[in-house]
């Protein structure tokens, strides 16, 4: 058997693949957090809950209405995005003038509500989500076996991440968004409806989380607490990358997924904690984060 540093290549590449998959979710979620933070100045603690809602929506669409994976990939984000818009109008819009911490506390409360309701109706055990037939199977690449669905998840995440980056950094709409982040009053003076942009941004962020949730459903089981643990790791990713840059969020998401995967191969005991350790080291060496612009 071929080995690298005493580890069989199959195992190494297998874990690297899992790392990339996890990294896709870290990237998608930290991207959403960064976009929301940029516009609303709120850390969206409910992001994990919205990710979970996406997975649950896909599960319910399939098992109650018989609507499959492909439509769910569009429908679930639309549903959760709409919920996000309602949340912003009902709750978040009253907080913009207050200390940032209140936004964190309120969205934490929302996360508890969503997770609590989920636990009541779905239980805490994971519910399996069946893969669509078109994405079953896989290819043997010679050095490793690559399941089609995993390749699909990584590919789509990359496309969505860079699509978002392009939309924000290279289009006119993105220019409005960035301008409104810097100076909302001035942008309003130019006749642009900033409050509506803020609402839609939150809806988009929630939809992005839900999209990640639908993609996660066939890989991990659908369960009400799938979001809460993940969001804490994503917070660490955000601290490492800094929220100043979209590209930074994407790169640190994938990078940390890979680091986590490698840790599973070489020192499995630390695989749960390695991202937090990296965070501590980054705080010591570069307190502003790898891509941050000041604290």
């Amino acid at each position: 058997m071929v080995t690298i540093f005493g580890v069989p290549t199959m195992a190494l590449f297998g874990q690297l693949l899992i790392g990339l998959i996890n990294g896709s979710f870290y990237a998608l979620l930290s991207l959403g957090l960064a976009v929301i933070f940029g516009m609303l100045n709120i850390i969206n603690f409910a992001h994990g809950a919205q990710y979970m809602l996406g997975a649950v929506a896909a599960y319910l669409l399939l098992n109650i209405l018989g609507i499959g994976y492909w439509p769910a990939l569009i429908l679930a984000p639309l549903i959760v995005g709409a919920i996000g818009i309602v949340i912003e109008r009902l709750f978040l819009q009253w907080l913009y003038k207050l200390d940032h911490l209140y936004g964190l506390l309120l969205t934490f409360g929302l996360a508890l509500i969503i997770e609590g309701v989920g636990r009541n109706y779905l239980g805490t055990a994971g519910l399996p989500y069946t893969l669509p037939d078109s994405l079953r199977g896989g290819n043997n690449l010679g050095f490793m076996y690559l399941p089609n669905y995993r390749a699909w998840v990584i590919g789509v995440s990359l496309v969505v991440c860079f699509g978002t980056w392009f939309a924000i950094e290279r289009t006119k709409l993105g220019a409005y968004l960035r301008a409104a982040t810097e100076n909302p009053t001035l942008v309003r003076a130019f006749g642009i409806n900033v409050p509506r942009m803020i609402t839609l941004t939150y809806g988009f962020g929630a939809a992005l989380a839900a999209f990640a949730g639908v993609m996660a459903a066939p890989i991990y089981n659908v369960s009400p607490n799938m979001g809460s643990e993940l969001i804490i790791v994503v917070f660490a990713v955000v601290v490492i990358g800094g929220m100043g840059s979209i590209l930074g969020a994407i790169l640190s998401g994938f990078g940390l997924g890979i680091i986590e995967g490698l840790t599973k191969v070489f020192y499995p005991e630390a695989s749960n904690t390695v991202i937090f350790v990296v965070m501590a080291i980054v705080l010591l060496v570069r307190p502003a984060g790898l891509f941050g612009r000041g604290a």
Partner: protein
Amino acid sequence: MMEHAPLDKRFSVLGTTSQTIAFAVLAVILVTAPFFTYPLFLMECMCFGLFALAFNLLVGYVGLLSFGHALYFGWASYLSAEAAKNWGLSPELAILVGTATAALCGLVAGALAIRRQGIYFAMITLALAQMMYFVALRAKFTGGEDGIQAVPRGHLFGVIDISSNAAMYVVVLVIFLGGFLLIHRIIHSPFGEVLKAIRENEPRAISLGYKTDRYKLMAFVLSATLAGLAGATKALVVQIASLTDVYWPMSGEVVLMTLVGGLGTVFGPIVGAFVILTMQYKLAWIGQWVLVIQGVIFVVCVLLFRRGIVGEIAHRLRIKL
């Protein structure tokens, strides 16, 4: 730098008159209450009250929101339980071991967390607490999902048997009131005044020559230590240390208690702890819905009731509480 702190206001040990009266009422209630309700419940209330007071020291007076205080509470409770059960230490030493553990964790976590501000501070404290949760999950001595069970209360100073609830109640009462007075003293000391100055305007405090990072770290360590004192005591009260105490919902719970009682008020955290624990006991039968109710309380408090119970009373009566 202490001598430069504003000293124009002279404080009695208990601050204002209204606070002295409120403290007297609190002491009377806590001394008489065990004759009317379950001592075990009251002891838990005091432990969580002290925990919330310690948390409030940081968020209410320095403006730093820690979302990871379960780390200090939970790890102190583990070490205190381990010391009492397996090292055969007497209860006061076991509590000391637990508290010292929390102080050490607070020193390390605090030194990392104060390198960033605001929202990042909250995320860093939460992430570090989650890391230590995983460590607790993996470590042998913590007993994983089972926790450390059947922790003996033992003999205080090796002499006084505190296995009965009555004896333990006195111990917890002394620790609670001592902790309260200490926190009160810290808040109203020149050191506390500097902390409030940092909360209001950190750049100005820096320009006045205060090394604000040192003050923040000191406040963090004090807060972690007192949270540890609460956790270490609780392990002996309920005679178990478990993963619940180090897991993130516990960090959220202490935030909730303080928010309900009143952020930055002297007595708010105690009232908040009592209200939330009472709710949990009364509503134990509705199971998972407790989580939903807690979420709703968070939302309502943030949107409509930011002063909290004690803060609102103090505001209406125009006194300091």
